[in-house]
């Protein structure tokens, strides 16, 4: 049975896309890895006790409205469903491999759709500093998830380090929840603020500026803010015990029990890449993104990408892009004509343009400095396979032209995370060693499965005559 649209990911983009597709009369299924909708930014929105929601802000509550909108449609919402493969078939339909968690394990089935919208969102940008793999070192996003979904607050000496609006937002949220933040250690280089304002003077008059200023002021009142940090290192034996940092080339050390790291988010491109979508390097964002047109269309027929997975632009932009891809799909499947599509798209494009314009300032301000994107020496570039920065650089100097060759030589990218936490690092290490731009170096050749499934699950997929002929030889 072939459905009209399969949407992958129940964050703001996926919710908007699935809701709009269903409203346009398309038989729609929304698959999501988590047990409840909301993605990461609206994590736990349907379960968070009201008290928590009040603390986390009005933005967060917006997610609840999006979920309600979806639930009011006939779209099938499938939680606990990992989409581990996506591919375009010769008849321009899309086949997805979906692993659904059931009691005691998981079951896999293949889904056919006339079109698919990937809204798998973003992940924390890797933050490869010495000691970043020590227990007690965690992403800021991770700490936020613990707060939002389990009401857990880190105790003892807590330090937040890195760059980006989330740093300040999370610091405020954690302190409101009772955590003591010993310091907020910011890695934005000197002079960057001036540069960002020069790029986006209009930001000064935007509502983001006011909100940002207020937030920063409130945080500064309640914790020590250390700025213009040039290097970070997590120190400890079996868990993190201290944070060493330098400012103006002078070293300092503070004791920590929890080190929360964040330097922005990057698109999750594994599923789009494995489906064969072309990926390109976005130099301002220092990450890879799928190549998409103005409707979210990729280089694979009938496959679209919406939301932060297409390029980091935040929740508002994600919702707009989700709705735009829904219109494109509805048009492609003959539900609406060009005129209606373009008419309904107009307000969405305005919302999208506003959201993207507003982000320009942040994009420049918070682009992580080289020292924090490109590690050195014994610092681990690949956490899973424990490959150091030095090993990657040596491989590049010995002739490794890119990450795929480096992967074959060093195993970086071959571990359980499938290169999610080392992709941009490995690319930039090789680029720097070879003296060429990251765009030229490229990234992994992503392949299925992009999420884990058991051998038994894989074996349960119906075979085909062609497949048996390829494998069974009596």
């Amino acid at each position, binding site marked *: 049975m072939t459905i009209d649209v399969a949407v992958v990911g129940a964050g703001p983009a996926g919710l908007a896309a699935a809701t709009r597709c269903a409203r346009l009369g398309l038989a729609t299924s929304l698959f999501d890895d988590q047990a409840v909708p909301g993605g990461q930014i609206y994590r736990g929105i349907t379960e968070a006790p009201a008290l928590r929601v009040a603390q986390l802000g009005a933005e967060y509550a917006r997610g609840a409205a999006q979920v309600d909108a979806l639930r009011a449609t006939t779209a099938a919402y499938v939680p606990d469903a990992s989409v581990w493969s996506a591919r375009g078939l010769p008849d321009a339909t899309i086949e997805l491999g979906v692993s659904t968690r059931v009691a005691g394990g998981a079951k896999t089935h293949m889904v056919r759709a006339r079109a698919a919208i990937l809204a798998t969102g973003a992940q924390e940008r890797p933050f490869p500093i010495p000691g970043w793999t020590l227990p007690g070192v965690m992403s800021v996003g991770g700490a936020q998830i613990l707060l939002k979904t389990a009401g857990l607050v880190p105790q003892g000496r807590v330090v937040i380090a890195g760059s980006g609006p989330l740093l300040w937002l999370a610091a405020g949220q954690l302190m409101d929840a009772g955590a003591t933040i010993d310091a907020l250690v910011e890695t934005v280089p000197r002079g960057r603020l001036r540069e960002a304002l020069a790029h986006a003077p209009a930001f000064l008059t935007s509502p983001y500026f006011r909100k940002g200023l207020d937030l920063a002021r409130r945080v500064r009142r309640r914790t020590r803010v250390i700025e213009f940090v040039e290097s970070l290192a997590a120190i400890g034996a079996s868990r993190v015990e201290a944070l060493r940092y330098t400012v103006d080339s002078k070293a300092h050390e503070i004791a920590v029990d929890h080190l929360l790291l964040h330097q922005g988010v990057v698109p999750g491109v594994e599923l789009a890449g494995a489906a064969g979508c072309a990926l390109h390097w976005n130099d301002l964002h220092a990450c890879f993104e799928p190549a998409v047109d103005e409707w979210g269309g990729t280089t694979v027929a009938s496959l679209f990408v919406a939301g932060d997975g297409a390029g980091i632009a935040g929740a508002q932009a994600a919702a707009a892009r989700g709705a735009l891809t829904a219109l494109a799909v509805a048009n492609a499947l003959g539900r609406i004509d060009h005129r209606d599509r373009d008419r309904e798209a107009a307000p969405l494009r305005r919302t999208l343009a506003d959201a993207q314009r507003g982000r320009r300032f942040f994009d420049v301000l918070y682009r992580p400095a080289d020292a924090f994107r490109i590690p050195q020496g014994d610092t681990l570039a690949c956490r899973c396979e424990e490959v150091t920065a030095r090993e990657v650089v040596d491989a590049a100097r010995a002739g490794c032209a890119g990450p795929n060759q480096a992967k074959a030589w060093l195993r970086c990218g071959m571990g359980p995370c499938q290169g999610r936490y080392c992709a941009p690092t490995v690319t930039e290490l090789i680029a720097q060693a070879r003296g060429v731009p990251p765009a030229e170096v490229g990234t992994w050749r992503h392949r*299925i499965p992009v999420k884990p499934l058991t051998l038994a699950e894989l074996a349960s997929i119906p*075979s085909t005559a062609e497949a048996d002929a390829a494998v069974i030889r009596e």
Partner: protein
Amino acid sequence: MTKLEFDIAIVGGGLVGAAIAYGLRALGDDLVVLDEGDRAQRAARGNFGLIWVQGKGLGLPSYGAWTQRSAREWPRLAADLRDQTGIDVALRQAGGVHLCMSAHELETRRAQLQALMAQPGFARYDVDVLDRAALAVRLPGLGDAVAGGTYCAQDGDCNPLRLLRALHAALQAARCQYRPGAAVDVIEPIGDRFLLRTRDGVVAARRLVLAAGLANARLAPQVGLAAPVRANKGQIVVLERVQPFLPLPVETLRQTDDGTVLIGDSQQDADDEALDPAVLAAMAKRALAAFPGLAGVRVQRAWAALRVMSPDGFPIYAQSRRHPGAFVATCHSGVTLAAVHAHVLAPALAASELPQGCADFTPERFDVRATA
């Protein structure tokens, strides 16, 4: 100053090219290996890692001998690479098993091996035909669906990615030139040299070895050779690391020294590297029938690679008659044959000839009209 003139240029830095280059490394920077970029179709990265003897050579006994010779040369290759580079390629030669999933399959296999050994001039070796009970002693956890299998003490495996890395490290240590991003478009024989127009500039060499896998088909005729190879697509499933449980490689399933489990193999007449879940599923079913204990182990990765297949599946080694000094070398068992490529083929090429015992591997056997 970038060196542009060499004694020998090897086109292709995969397992065949790197093993031959390794055997010629005494040439130092008079040797250049020209390789493609990061995204090239590379059979070398798609290897299963078997060093396999049993069953090979049906239709060409000298292939059986060539393979066995390589298996015997392998310990020296592994030891030398470890000494020179510090890289252990995890050579294991404790035997290997070909599984049969029915009594009929077991009987067919037995008959095939018998026919193999009965060929005139075939260098025979022992292969034990074992029923399930005897096999289960060697392979704990063997599934009930397995009818039996054939065991050969000369079979083994290694870590093929580390092998490639070790070969390249040895080349680097010997100061041989390695040029990635230098795919060869055109070769012009000019006088006593060959001009190679690569994506990274022009290179000249007195002698030339084409070890470019599928690209050999296009390049060989440019120097009066023939290498009629086609792509044969194989897909592989890789499971996450588990504690050591499989002491011997099975022809379609082995546990690596890292603890991961490799599952193969599929064969399709195709030249793309797209993965087909149905093919992966068929391989998974067969693996589960052999080792049911793997049911809950997770699939970590999968990939496809293109075997370099000659019309009869046997290697092609040849020297151009029209342009002496130009050679072609291609096979689909780059891991098994790495040792003879390094220890036997390379020294012969250094003397501008082909080794004894390789006369059967010229492309004339395909009835191709050789360029005079």
